[in-house]
């Protein structure tokens, strides 16, 4: 698992597919999540694009595409049950899967130890 400074986690599921969610730290900071807007399957995204909107009881925030690629799956269950983002951010509450031809962009990100010291 890799981690971004935007508090996303990235897991390589094989076949060049990366699963993306947010960390426990991020879900705690957001507070109770009440709305999630997901990208369309098939969307071509560039690293840094805002592709998910999360609304919590406090504010709206975005999830950025962590790498270039194509959205191949989204977690529709979050639309009806956004609270999953708080109850199981590292498991059931993944947001999207992205297929990339160039996984070398993953090397830019932190491993778990580095992320833990990043959030202090």
């Amino acid at each position, binding site marked *: 698992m890799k981690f971004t400074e935007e508090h996303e986690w990235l897991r390589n599921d094989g076949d060049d597919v990366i699963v993306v969610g947010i960390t426990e730290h991020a879900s705690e900071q957001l*507070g*109770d999540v*009440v*709305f999630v*807007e997901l990208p369309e399957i098939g969307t071509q995204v560039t690293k840094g694009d805002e592709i998910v*909107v999360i*609304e919590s*009881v*406090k*504010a*709206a925030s975005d999830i950025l595409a962590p790498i270039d690629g194509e959205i191949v799956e989204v977690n529709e269950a979050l*639309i009806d049950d*956004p609270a999953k983002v*708080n109850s199981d951010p590292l498991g059931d509450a993944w947001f999207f899967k992205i297929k990339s031809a160039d996984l070398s962009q993953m090397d830019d990100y932190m491993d778990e130890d580095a992320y833990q010291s990043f959030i202090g």
Partner: protein
Amino acid sequence: MSDLETTPLTALHRALGAKMVPFAGYEMPVQFPAGVLKEHLHTRAAAGLFDVSHMGQVIVRSGESHESAAAAMEALLPVDVLDLPEGRQRYGVFTNETGGILDDLMLANRGDHLFLVVNAARRDHDIAHLRAGLPRCRIEEIKHRALLALQGPKAEAVLAGLVPGVASMRFMDVGVFRSDHGELWISRSGYTGEDGYEISVGAGEAETLARALLAHEDVAPVGLGARDSLRLEAGLCLYGHDIDQTTTPIEAALGWAIQKVRRRGGTREGGFPGAAVILDQLENGAERQRVGLRPEGRAPMREGTTLFKTDGAGDPVGRVTSGAFGPTIGAPMSMGYVPAALADPGTRIHGDVRGKRMPVTVANLPFTAANFKR
């Protein structure tokens, strides 16, 4: 946060694990570990304890008679102060010469004086305004008392366990009670749409009183986050957001707070700042109006969202002044201003959310029925 003021309960908030934020010059709890959603729902189901010590507590006293203080006060706000019985409280607004709202407040008749609770961010303004407007009255800012709010259907049973006299109070009654925590100034009121009390307590006794209330299994601490979603569900205005110096009480749908004697044809008609504008709007309607808004779908329409008549081109017709997710209604909710022609409940308009025109329907306020003990 060293330049921020604290309240007598700041240490308790920290001990309870609150997340503290700056608010109106104070360091205040925005949420406790349970989180905004659970704190909100707990208040509607049982009882929530809020620290509202940042709000201004002010005593207005005349050297002559209570009537002269009440009469003088009527020159500052479009409220019937003279006929407010002893032991009763009423909501009101200070107005300016153009009919705008300088602040909203609670005002109680406590026999030989008036007791006011004003917004934290407007306290200094209001005190200066009172001193300038009421030169023959003594304006005393109460600095050494905390203010707690206990809100929710279990509030009566909980507080009556400590102060038996409160059970027989009705909505908007006020009284002074002796207790194990010193002299308490209690009103049966609040700002959540629930039954409950606001309790002014000496700074030195505030924490033991708060702990005694929290010791009850029905009581949980609640932060400013849930206070905001509770008041919004209850259709109540937040000063500086839903009302300010550019909105009149009539535009803000607060005409109910102007009693008959202060309206046209009343025995003490007008006589407050902005009376010409406000009384004209009361009779003929205002061009725009504060309304409830129910966005379709689950995405909240937050403060600042621009409103449009249609999903096509055209100029904006209004703006959202408060918006959040309503935990009790399980849906997003907003308040905002729209032209009178679009203010009827059921009217479908649109709001710009992240560049997309999203449908939103004008709705009756409050979003949740009030649960007061009248």
